């Protein structure tokens, strides 16, 4: 019997992992720090492609392998975005102090929200005829700012305010290589 010669099709192109990032109640400092991985961004782009992110301007998160969240939740929209990320991302990473423990925005938590709004829109020096914005387009503020793990399950955390580019790079490369991420002395920082 003549066995037909088999030729293996060459499959060496691994599908890229899809990564989404967003900033909730954060200052974009963590995203700036992400950009501090500098030219390693090119190496990263060999392995991943971006879904929703300030880098792509895609407005909604589709199915992704990794979601990276900067900032805690301070208003209703933050909660919706966070849930969309959790529903779509296999791995969810909290990046930075605000996502992890509420951070700077949570410093308002010991004050009643009404006092904060009064102070910002009414009482402060130089505000004439100030009023508290109530346009239905605006997301309603939550009475307290919360870290994201209080709302959804979070798989990994990169602490820091912001974490260094090196810390972010370490966690991402560990994950991409299938290792449990570990920071260690010098890279783990809460400030």
């Amino acid at each position, binding site marked *: 019997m003549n066995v037909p010669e088999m030729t293996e099709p060459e499959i060496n192109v691994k599908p890229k992992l899809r990564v989404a990032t967003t900033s909730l109640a954060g200052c974009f400092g963590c995203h700036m720090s992400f950009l501090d991985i500098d030219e390693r961004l090119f190496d990263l782009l060999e392995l991943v492609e971006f879904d929703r992110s300030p880098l792509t301007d895609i407005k909604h998160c589709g199915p992704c392998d990794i979601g990276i969240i900067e900032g805690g939740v301070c208003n209703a929209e933050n909660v919706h975005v966070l849930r969309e990320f959790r529903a779509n991302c296999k791995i969810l990473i*909290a990046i930075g*102090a605000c996502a*992890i*423990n*509420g*951070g*700077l925005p*949570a*410093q308002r*938590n*010991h004050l009643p929200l009404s006092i904060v709004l009064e102070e910002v829109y009414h009482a402060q020096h130089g505000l004439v005829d100030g009023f508290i914005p109530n346009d239905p387009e605006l997301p309603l503020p939550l009475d*307290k700012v*919360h*870290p994201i*793990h*209080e709302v959804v399950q*979070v798989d*990994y*955390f*990169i*602490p820091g*305010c912001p974490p260094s580019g090196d810390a972010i790079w370490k966690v991402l490369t560990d994950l991409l290589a299938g290792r449990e991420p*570990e*920071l260690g*002395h*010098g890279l*783990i*920082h*809460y*400030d």
Partner: protein
Amino acid sequence: MNPDKQTFTLDGKTIPFCNGQTIIQAAMDAGEYIPHLCFNPEFKPHGSCKLCTVKADGRTTASCTQFAQDGMVVESNTKEINDERRVLLQMLFVEGNHFCPSCEKSGNCQLQATAYELNMMSPHFDQFFPDRPLDASHPEYFLDLNRCILCSLCVRASRDVDGKNVFALSGRGIKSHVIVNAQSGQLGDTDFAGDDKAAQVCPVGVILKKRVGFSVPIGKRSFDEQPISATPHPVVKEA
């Protein structure tokens, strides 16, 4: 039994000790690190934080209150114990308000450094966000009770070294808090002074000297340079 030859093992290493030494004292003298917060070698142990928990001959005990015994087998740096220590740290973090980026003690803080040592990546639990006071009434020092971990070192230092009793722990359970010995409740109305021992012992960022905050740049602070495990007797730079 030769009293000079008494030893126990700590994670397999032989540690010599003298009569009356606790496990942690002997370990520190031998240059070994056991995580701890309320223990300070200069003071009587308080045994409250339980960070120093070890297994001595299989029994869980606080190494800062447990006397060393000849032939004892002590386990400290194990996954099981470190997992429990991390949970204790996470509870301390959520119980107070620890916003490290704006804390003058950051980089020199034993709570933070111990959390780094034990790879605490998140507080895990829900934050309490308690409403705690800040006392800036003293001309040289302020008290930020948002960060108090109730270790009682200030109490012990003021009472046992300064002979002043400026600080005390008051209340029970989750309502426990540090109070100062003045009718007004304000530090400025006590005889607390900058050269008191109590001004130097707080392991976290509660008792802080005014006008020196952030004088040491990031990268040069105690625990930037080396992890807390490499400094068994923490020589903490002033915040």
